């Protein structure tokens, strides 16, 4: 006879757990679409995709285990802010890879793979129409693909793939937005298996979009995403570069209407809980700012230094700090409307 225990979280409503989640997070417009609930759901009922998270027929199919609530970063939401603790901050540019700016996410992953710290990494790739696709990276060779590197400003279901990877492999890395990092930290708190996520690479993030809304929006502006080679947000401008070398840019302010509600309450710019955060802010063009927060990430950076696979400079940490504060300002929580109603 063998027995073990598990915790059942508290309910706020007398519904099944997904009902709670729906009422408190999704319908409250807090959902950040990190897909952690979809990943953890034991009956694979929660669907994420290019639409808000949902569990069709949850009344019947939900098994009422509460796992989704345990992992949701927005359940009992306390926003994280600031630049967080870090060991060191550098500004670097990869010599091997080409990416968004300095391709440091790629470089860190590749180095970690080469060092054997991780077995695989979950990356976001894209198809021709800039729809996000998840790929597993097992060897640095795959990272030469330009579709794998580079930022996509759309939601991606990284966490379901991460869960599969965690079950199979002993050491996994992944790249995600601050909310995904928070979700993974919550997972690690509740479920031991997720401690296999050895390296969580956070991205500097102001907001993210639904793919269909983004592409419709851009189409309205006369931009055909299929011809784009790179998208970027720099200095308050959304820039699209094309195959033929041309580029267009719009102020980010214009995107206000399509920013999903979940992003409007997020104050975490620098992925505070990650092992290492990467972004362009705080570095000159062609370089990325890397904020190292944990020992394992430090090891990787040291290896990069040692091997000299990247050019390393001093970052302008103040700029990052400024943007962190800026994000808190533009994304107030509890939001102003909510305060008013209260």
């Amino acid at each position, binding site marked *: 006879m063998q027995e073990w225990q598990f915790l059942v979280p508290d309910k706020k409503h007398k519904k099944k757990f997904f009902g709670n989640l729906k009422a408190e997070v999704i319908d409250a417009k807090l959902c950040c679409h990190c897909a952690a609930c979809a990943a953890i759901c034991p009956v694979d009922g929660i669907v994420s995709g290019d639409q808000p998270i949902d569990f069709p027929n949850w009344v019947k199919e939900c098994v009422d285990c509460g796992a989704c609530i345990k992992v949701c970063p927005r359940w009992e939401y306390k926003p994280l802010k600031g630049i967080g603790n870090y060991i060191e901050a550098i500004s670097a540019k990869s010599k091997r890879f080409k990416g968004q700016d300095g391709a440091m996410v790629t470089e860190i992953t590749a180095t970690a793979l080469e060092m054997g710290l991780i077995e*695989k990494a979950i990356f976001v790739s894209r198809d021709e129409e800039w729809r996000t696709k998840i790929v*597993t990276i*097992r060897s640095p060779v795959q990272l030469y693909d330009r579709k794998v590197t580079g930022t996509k400003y759309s939601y991606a279901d990284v966490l379901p793939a991460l869960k*599969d*990877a965690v079950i*199979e492999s002993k050491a996994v890395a992944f790249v995600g937005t601050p909310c995904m990092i928070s979700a993974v930290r919550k997972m690690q708190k509740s479920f031991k298996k997720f401690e296999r996520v050895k390296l969580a690479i956070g991205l500097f993030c102001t907001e993210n979009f639904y793919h269909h809304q983004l592409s419709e929006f851009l189409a309205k502006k006369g931009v055909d995403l299929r011809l784009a080679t790179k998208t970027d947000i720099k200095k308050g401008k959304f820039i699209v570069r094309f195959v033929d070398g041309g580029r267009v840019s719009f102020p980010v302010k214009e995107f206000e209407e399509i920013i999903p509600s979940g992003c409007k309450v997020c104050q975490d710019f620098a992925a505070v809980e990650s092992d290492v955060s990467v972004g362009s802010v705080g570095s000159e063009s062609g370089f990325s700012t890397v904020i190292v927060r944990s020992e394992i990430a430090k090891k990787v950076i040291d290896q990069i230094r040692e091997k000299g696979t990247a050019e390393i400079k001093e970052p302008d940490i103040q700029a990052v700090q400024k943007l962190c504060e800026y994000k808190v300002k533009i994304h107030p929580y509890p939001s102003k409307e909510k305060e008013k109603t209260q």
Partner: protein
Amino acid sequence: MKEFHLDIPVEPPKELESLFLPIPREYVEDTYRKDEFLVLVGPQHPGSGHMRLIVRVKGDIIQEVIPDPGYVHRCVEKIAENRLYIQNIPLVERPSIMDSANFNLGYVRAIEAAMDIEVPERAKFIRTILAELCRIGTHLYDAAILAVFIGHTTGFMYPFGIRELICESLVRMTGARFTSSFIVPGGVRRDVDEKTLRWVYDATFAIEKRLKSFERIFIKNPTVIARLRDVGVLSKEEAIKFGVVGPFLRASGVEYDTRVVEPYEAYEELTWDIVTADEGDGYARFMVRVNEVSQSLSIIRQCITSMPDGSYISEQIGEVRGNFFDKFADIVLPAGEYTTLTEAARGTLLFTIVSDGESNVPYRMRIVSPGWLYLRGFMEALKGERLADLQAIYGSFGYFPPEADR
């Protein structure tokens, strides 16, 4: 000889429109304008298997043949992407059921290569016996089909009679007449006992004895020689150019046999010869296979007499019975591409498995069966021959559409 054309415009028959020809209309019209003729051979034709040949003839001489394959295209490659690795074993056998062990072997070897499984010696020998039995069976099958294509019914009956012994051997060893699905990653499904091996050993002599009758009545038959000799000649250069494989390549004088070039299983430890011929005609193609049968018989005998003791399956796998599911259902190959070459009866068989390293189904499985590879050479061999030779050449290649179409 000078030819005289009747300058009468001939309209292509209406029926050609209703037969779903994969060729453009202009081609048909052009054929009829040039006082030539389109003959559709198959798929319901006593002298063709499950495929259609669109034969363009001028008088009795074949100008061009366009194959219309796919009548037995059973989507093996797609289905394989949706099945467990172990469930694909019966699937990959199906394209060529008389040659099942070789197909099975090729697939399993790809898995073993990916997973670094060491196969015990005894299993290797059993596998070799199975592969060679299937090779004999296939060659006999092809000989029988060749015989019936050139109108020799006795030549059809004898090989099929002898094949009964092959089937019986396979039943005794594996439990099925054709599709044994006996080779699994790491070894074979069951051990084969001494009594059965003895039976197979005796059967090889019985087969040899019966083959002597067959030789007198069919192989050395003057009418057969007349029909096959100097027919459908592929020179060495042509054979290489069109990528012909297996015994048909060897009949054109190229000494290429995967069992020697890239030895697998027990072939390195046995003594046998590569059979080649220089003529490259139908009879050479037939005779190469006839000689290969006797080589195979000798290989089987050597295998049985020098059968090593030991386990029939690798220690990494362990006893299969009752454990089959637990051992094999969750096979996940490391990510990468694995390609094996196997000498199936009709030639080189190529298996490519692409694994993504996480799924327990193949990401992509590519089978290039020998039939599909030598189809091009077969079509080239037909050019310039007589219409009546179509069947003889067809038979001399032993073209088996299910194998080619997969």
